[in-house]
């Protein structure tokens, strides 16, 4: 029994560290645009991101966590030797953490999700046997890595095209912005809340029927849109700054919208990426609690909360600097463009979270940014980075797998 406690503590430590890393690095992608465009101050951004990352992790993080915990490794094979699963999960966490540390030092665009999935596949294929991997599930996950950036790109393209058409190319863009921006707000809020209610909440034991779900999502989205419309109404044009940049006030209106989409993005990010840190922890906890391997039990809420807290601490300690740095570099992503990318990425990610697919939130956002670019929205996109992303993809999976295998055998010989 003592050994079990050691495992849980170790897994919680590794998982907490991973969550911290996710909070420190990746949250910047969600919030930097808002801070860079001055829609939010850094202090507000940290508070908003903390709240929504945490909510996303706890309310909608269950499905992906289940996938990481039981969907990739066939734990039924380990009914007689549950400690193998524990070693494997610990090894996967460590392997992913080491790989991420190494690659972020080198500046490679590596995904947390890819690292952990690669590690899990590696440990189960070599540590247990090729049969122990749910290959069809892994196939689906890998497909989703390709599909998610494309879907986000298409949505972003359509949304930004509509913004150009309805607002930016009109004679009176400010009036048009004030009219249509609340509609976009409604759409963003409705999609994210609906998917969360339909797919996410069941994992924390809340069940709401479909009809009620739609009504609830509609009500929440309407409330957000109305508050947004009131805030927007109070924005007055500044003739001096407007003379320098005709879209100055229009962008301020989009800035309000971007606060909403940034919340959505933080929520989506929390819902998908928390699993990378605490999915393995959830598996270890399940073994420690029951002493057997079971795929049935739900993910404990405290585990999700630990992941959420880890992300928030990472954000508060280190992430704020990253947000400021990145915000200064991505001035091309003005609020009108940034919101389109965020709304597309957040919707795609939340749907993946609801379906239990662990995807790369960063790559999805990159897909969305490319979509805005395809709609002629961005002055200059460096396509070399896309190539580097694809290469780092191909390397990350075997690298994560290899590291996990090595660490697994070490742990197996060291731990009781």
């Amino acid at each position, binding site marked *: 029994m003592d050994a079990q406690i050691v495992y849980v503590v170790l897994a919680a430590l590794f998982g907490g560290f991973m969550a911290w890393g996710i909070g420190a690095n990746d949250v910047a992608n969600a919030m930097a645009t808002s801070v860079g465009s001055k829609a939010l101050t850094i202090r507000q951004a940290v508070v908003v991101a903390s709240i929504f990352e945490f909510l996303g992790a706890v309310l909608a993080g269950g499905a992906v966590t289940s996938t990481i915990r039981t969907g990739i490794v066939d734990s039924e094979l380990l009914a007689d030797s549950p400690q193998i699963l524990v070693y494997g999960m610990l090894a996967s966490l460590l392997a992913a953490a080491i790989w991420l540390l190494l690659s972020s030092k080198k500046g490679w665009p590596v995904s947390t999700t890819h690292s952990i999935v690669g590690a899990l596949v590696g440990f189960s294929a070599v540590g247990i046997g090729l049969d122990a991997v749910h290959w069809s599930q892994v196939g689906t996950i890998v497909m989703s890595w390709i599909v998610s950036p494309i879907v986000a790109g298409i949505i972003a393209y359509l949304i930004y095209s509509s913004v150009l058409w309805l607002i930016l190319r009109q004679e009176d863009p400010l009036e048009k912005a004030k009219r249509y921006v609340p509609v976009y707000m409604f759409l963003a809020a409705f999609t994210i809340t609906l998917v969360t209610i339909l797919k996410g909440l069941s994992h924390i034991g809340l069940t709401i029927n479909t009809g009620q779900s739609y009504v609830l999502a509609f009500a929440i989205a309407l409330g957000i849109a109305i508050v947004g419309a009131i805030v927007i109404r109070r924005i007055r044009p500044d003739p001096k700054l407007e003379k320098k940049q005709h879209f100055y006030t229009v962008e301020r209106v989009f800035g309000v919208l971007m606060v909403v989409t940034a919340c959505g993005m933080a929520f989506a990010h929390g819902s998908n990426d928390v699993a990378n840190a605490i999915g393995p922890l959830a598996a270890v906890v399940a073994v420690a609690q029951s002493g057997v391997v079971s795929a049935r039990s739900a993910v404990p809420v405290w585990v999700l909360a630990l992941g959420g807290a880890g992300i928030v601490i990472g954000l508060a300690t280190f992430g704020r600097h990253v947000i400021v740095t*990145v915000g200064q570099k991505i001035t091309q992503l003005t609020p*009108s463009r940034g919101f389109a990318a965020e709304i597309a990425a957040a919707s795609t990610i939340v749907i993946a979270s609801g379906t239990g697919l662990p995807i790369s939130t960063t790559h999805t956002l990159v897909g969305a*940014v490319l979509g805005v670019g395809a709609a002629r929205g961005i002055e*200059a996109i460096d396509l070399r980075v896309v190539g580097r992303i694809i290469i780092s993809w191909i390397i990350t999976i075997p690298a994560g797998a290899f590291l996990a295998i090595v660490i697994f055998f070490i742990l197996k010989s060291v731990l009781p």
Partner: protein
Amino acid sequence: MSNVLANILGSSPVMPLERHIDIVYRCAKQLHEFFGAAIDGKWKKAAEIRAEIEALEHEADEIKKEIRLHLPKSLFMPVPREDILELLLVQDKIANRTKDVSGLVLGRKMKIPHAVADQFLDFVDRNIDAAKQARKSVRELDELFTAGFRGAEVDLVSGLIEELDRIETDTDDKQAALRAALFKIEDKLNPVDAVFLYQVINLIGEIADMAERVGRRLELLLSH
């Protein structure tokens, strides 16, 4: 530490282009005072202004290099990269012509005949107007990118370019009139000075020509 999002967004040439035309215009604008000093024979003052022109031309050159450096072929842009580089090149030529003409006048300490002095200054000012209108048009570049080169903003820029064309035509008329006025008094001038005066007038006229070409380049961007 590097961030994918920050890396994928290449550095936009738009604000640097607007900064470049700002400096180019400030450079061309110096010609008003420069020729004022030259007409009055205040060569010390003219030399100071010429130094200022050189400094501004150099600054414009630096921005030009900077922009080129940050526009690799791998960039994906809403308008062809080549058109942006061409625009940059003609913008830069306004500053180059300013430097050339001021150098020529200062080097030879050229006397501008008092009979045509007012007309001459008026011609210089009109060329500076053309550079100013070019700046005004290029300053719309960020708005054009925001609107994706369609819609109301395009009409606005088309209007600015039309005005630029009108100014350029005006400089042509003024140039013809100035040459005619010079022709009337040229037998009173030192022949070598007269030849160089015609050359100076040509060089000044090229400032408006380059400004007009800035307009043409912008127009090409609009048609994408």
